[in-house]
């Protein structure tokens, strides 16, 4: 038994335990719940996501109330807009230009190789990046403090299952330990490519590589891998956005515009970032 759970059971108050039993009936589903929940969820989602309203409403408000009202609607609370990126992407190169030096000396632009699966960690790490250690993390100090020793031991223990790797990667990502998170997601995908955690890990790793050090080429491979394997998956929109951004970062502007068009076509309700709207406008004007 989990030690924390054992401590909880040993020190739990019998009065509170008895009261919790009193409320058990109310925690269970009731006959009218499905209808009530459907109404409540739809109403809340509508109020939280005025997806089609802001731009139209902003135009109408600006006509009626002036620029101040438009600025207010455009600065709505966090929950009604996509969460801002913690680290903005690097400055985009001019269309058609070679990638910036920050990505390292890269081969001429071409379709990335298919994602290797089940390959040895060391081999993959050394092929792509000689400066990476066994787990694929850079040898130099990574961002964020090292994780707890127990987590590291568990990560390196023989045969960690997909769920354990996924949880460790999530916690590292949420703690800002991005290099460690990349290594753990990567390991999960190498060891358990068919697991139920693999789809989320693929997209999560793609974004980490795009925004925190792996590079747009590797990120593009991840996003396309997701879209090839799970084209109707719940993260398809996110993967398409990642694909478009990675292509833009690689200087493949026309392909990036096509990726934005596909995203808009496949996900009509999507809130598109400004660069996507600009790309679609450019396409429309051609």
């Amino acid at each position, binding site marked *: 038994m989990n030690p924390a759970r054992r401590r909880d059971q040993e020190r739990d108050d019998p009065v509170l335990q008895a009261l919790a039993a009193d409320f058990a009936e109310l925690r269970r589903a009731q006959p009218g719940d499905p209808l009530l929940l459907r109404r409540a969820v739809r109403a*809340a989602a509508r109020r939280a996501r005025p997806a089609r309203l802001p731009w139209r409403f902003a135009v109408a408000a600006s006509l009626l109330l002036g620029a101040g009202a438009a600025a207010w609607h455009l600065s709505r609370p966090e929950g009604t807009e996509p*969460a801002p990126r913690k680290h903005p992407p690097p400055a985009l190169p001019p269309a058609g230009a070679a990638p910036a030096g920050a990505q390292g000396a890269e081969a001429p632009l071409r379709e990335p190789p298919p994602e290797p699966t089940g390959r040895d960690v060391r081999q993959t790490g050394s092929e792509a990046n000689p400066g990476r250690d066994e787990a694929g993390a850079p040898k130099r100090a990574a961002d964020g403090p090292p994780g707890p020793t127990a987590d590291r031991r568990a990560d390196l223990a023989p045969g960690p299952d997909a769920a354990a790797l996924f949880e460790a990667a999530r916690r590292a990502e949420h703690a800002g330990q991005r290099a460690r998170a990349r290594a753990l997601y990567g390991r999960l995908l190498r060891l358990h490519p068919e697991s139920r955690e693999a789809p989320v890990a693929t997209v999560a790793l793609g974004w980490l590589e795009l925004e925190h050090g792996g590079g747009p080429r590797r990120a593009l491979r991840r996003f396309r891998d997701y879209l090839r394997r799970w084209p109707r998956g719940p993260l398809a929109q*996110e993967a398409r956005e990642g694909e478009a951004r990675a292509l833009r970062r690689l200087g493949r502007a026309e392909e990036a515009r096509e990726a934005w068009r596909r995203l808009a076509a496949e996900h009509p309700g999507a809130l598109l970032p400004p660069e996507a709207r600009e790309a679609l406008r450019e396409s429309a004007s051609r």
Partner: protein
Amino acid sequence: MSVAGGSGDPGLEALLRAARRGDGRALERLLGRLAPQVLAACRGVLGPAHPELEDAAQEALLALAEALPRFRGECRPERYAARIAARVALRSLHRWRRRDPPPGAWTALDPSHPPQGEAAERVARRRRLLRELLGELPPEQAEALVLRVVMDMRPSEIAEATGAPVNTVRSRLRLARERLARLLRERGLHPEEVHQ
């Protein structure tokens, strides 16, 4: 490896990520997945027959949607949802109390119908008493008590969901329980009443 606070559900995690990036359909699906927890918290705090139960559930879901960008995966999404719902429901309960409801109104929130015997009536009566007393507790104690008793969360789980140290949570629960016992005695009810 068991990692406290993990969602253990990649599907839910996928919806959470997509919703945070502005996918409206993922948001609705995510709220649908977490809605039962939200409703359970609201129903427990307000009572199954409270006239504003659906409104409170909707407000809690909206609060959850707006809080998603701040959620850092420190606990399971279901528990995060329960915590937000508990706070919204407690606010609703306080607003309702301020309207000075008549004595019979508390009974109407959680009636035993059809009458199911003495034991079932005692259970409903204890639930009603707890609701009356929630409004007299400090907010942190009321929140901890709701998560412990209404949502049956362990102190360690409450600590993860609220961000408070687990010993602080235990202390709040102990203080809430002591105050509960004092108030029960003032009403002429021994704390042992709860065990019967």
